């Protein structure tokens, strides 16, 4: 299950918005090799890992890769 932490990890202040750059960043999140795709792969592949350490690592990274989606 998922719980959501109602705070950002780091403070964010955008002093000069840049549409081109924003488009690039969004592609990184949602594109074919984006954070979201990677996150889903890790979270699904951890079930077939042979060691506890591997399961834990994929869980941690998969969860962490979901974080950028929250920033949107």
């Amino acid at each position, binding site marked *: 299950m998922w719980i*959501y932490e*109602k*705070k*950002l990890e780091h403070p964010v*202040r955008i002093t000069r918005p840049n549409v081109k750059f924003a488009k690039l960043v969004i592609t990184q999140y949602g594109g074919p090799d984006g954070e979201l795709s990677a996150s889903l792969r890790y979270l699904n592949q951890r079930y077939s890992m042979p060691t506890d350490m591997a399961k834990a690592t994929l869980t941690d990274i998969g969860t962490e890769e979901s974080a950028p989606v929250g920033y949107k």
Partner: protein
Amino acid sequence: MMKCDNKQAALLRKIQEMEFVAIELNLYLNTHPCDQCAQNDFNCAVEILRKLKDKYECEFGPLLNFGFGSTTKNPWQWSEGPWPWEM
């Protein structure tokens, strides 16, 4: 970045700083599990972080939903602003 914009922002900034310490030490201990100093530092950081979060949640509402945060008098505070991207 206006750290002293208001009390809420300032306290949240302290939480972010302490959390950074805890995360970094956690990651370090993943590869250096026998480092006693780091373990002690981590435990101290966690203690401080918990106190800061309790203080924040008491005044400004929960940081976690579904009952994972501290209980507050007003149970509807979760849905109240400001939300993280509005701060």
